């Protein structure tokens, strides 16, 4: 449910590190709490994000929630497929439902994130 190769934030986002690029998405817990995702608002490619700052919005039928970036850097790619198929966030939160890819500006800040076991323990 919470893959061990990922890092997690208390705002229920996950990070997958590939060299200097961090892929970001929302956790299983987040998508289950939200319910059916019907809209995702993502930032422009090229914009800078700070760690734990708001970078977008995710909406379910019932409500809208802010997305907070678990890493710091420049956004190099966004998941365009979510414009037409936002439900992918529910179906594959750790795969095809990824949100953004960030070129890390300061990888030491990854230390502020949790591993899978620690994150899961916060959900009790």
């Amino acid at each position, binding site marked *: 449910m919470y893959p061990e190769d990922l890092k997690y934030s208390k705002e229920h986002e996950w990070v997958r590190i590939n060299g200097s690029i961090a892929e970001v998405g929302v956790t299983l817990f987040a998508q289950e709490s*939200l*319910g*059916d995702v*019907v*809209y995702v608002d993502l930032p422009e490619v090229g914009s800078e994000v700070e760690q734990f700052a708001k970078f977008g919005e995710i909406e*379910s*039928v*019932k409500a809208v929630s802010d997305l907070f970036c678990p890493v710091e850097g420049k956004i190099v790619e966004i998941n365009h497929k979510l414009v037409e198929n936002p439900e992918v966030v529910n179906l594959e939160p750790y795969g095809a439902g990824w949100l953004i890819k960030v070129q890390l500006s300061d990888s030491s800040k990854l230390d502020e994130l949790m591993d899978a076991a620690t994150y899961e323990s916060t959900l009790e």
Partner: protein
Amino acid sequence: MLTDDSQCTKKTPLYPTHLESNAKMTEFCGWSMPVQYPKGIIAEVKAVRDSVGIFDVSHMGRLEFEGPRSQYFLGTILSADLMALKLGRSKYNFICNKDGGIIDDAMVYRVGDERFLLIVNAGNTDKDLQWIASQPVDDSGCNMEILTNKTAMIAIQGPQAVALVDEVTAGSASKIGRFRIANVSFDGCDATLARTGYTGEDGFEIIVPADQGSDLWSHLKNSGAVECGLGARDVLRLEAGLPLHGNDISTCTNPYEAGFGRFVYTEAPDYVAGDSLVQISATDHPRLLVGFKMIGRGIPRPGLRILSCLSDENTSSLIGTVTSGTYSPTVDGGIGMGYVERKYAEVGNEIVIDVRGRLVEAEIVKLPFYKQF
């Protein structure tokens, strides 16, 4: 993201059934209610549009008025013409204060020559009871009984509702016309069956003794009905253009500006809101409740600002507020209702919704968004 429901004191007779079904529970007007079941809101909405869904509506207030003066007494409180309400028929109506503001909206059913059933919103039941108790008119000859806690109420909605309810009531359902009510039998118990609802679909609302609620629910579920929560109920009622008290109507709005003047009858003797409503109906309402569909990408939510379309000078002004809004699976887009200044309130007009700083175009459309009949 979820409201903590541990503080709720009120639970419907179906509460254990919802937990068994792994419903996501939420606090709603002091009641612990299912907001959705594991299949999710979109699947629940589709079930009601395509087949049949069931809703626990036991939290709604159920008041019975009986006696030779019950028609007179209710007539002083409700906006319905009860004299014209025949046995077994129902009428949508408003409970208005002396100024014509809407305390609640309700369904009234004539269940006997001198007996009426009034179904009111869960969140307003106490206010309605206070209002009823504060009336200066003589209430002798009219006894009120609160049935809410003695009974369970289940809504069965969708194109397959008639066949399903026929199955549990030995064929009684299909004999009841739209907006009619009758006494039926379920499992040897007396039940009240009304062909009404809050989804825009054909369907029923059935009232059974509280201890029969779970059995009926299980029976309906095992016969193929999809369990639906408050989330789906809100989407369905908005698609059907039906107002939600507290959002689209309130004591600060009157029935005319909300577009429901056809549900107001002011001639009943001693009707408490009569004079005000007559006066209001004769004026030009500065704002009107409209329905709108999003053109651009975005979902309207209650409280968002409605702006006029950009003018040639690239300016737009505040013209109203969104009162209800959601993503509609049936329309496949954002839909909403809100009050806008009268001159902007025409069907076909383009407006702008301020979605937390993002200006998104929308179009005023004729309600309802979805029509089955």
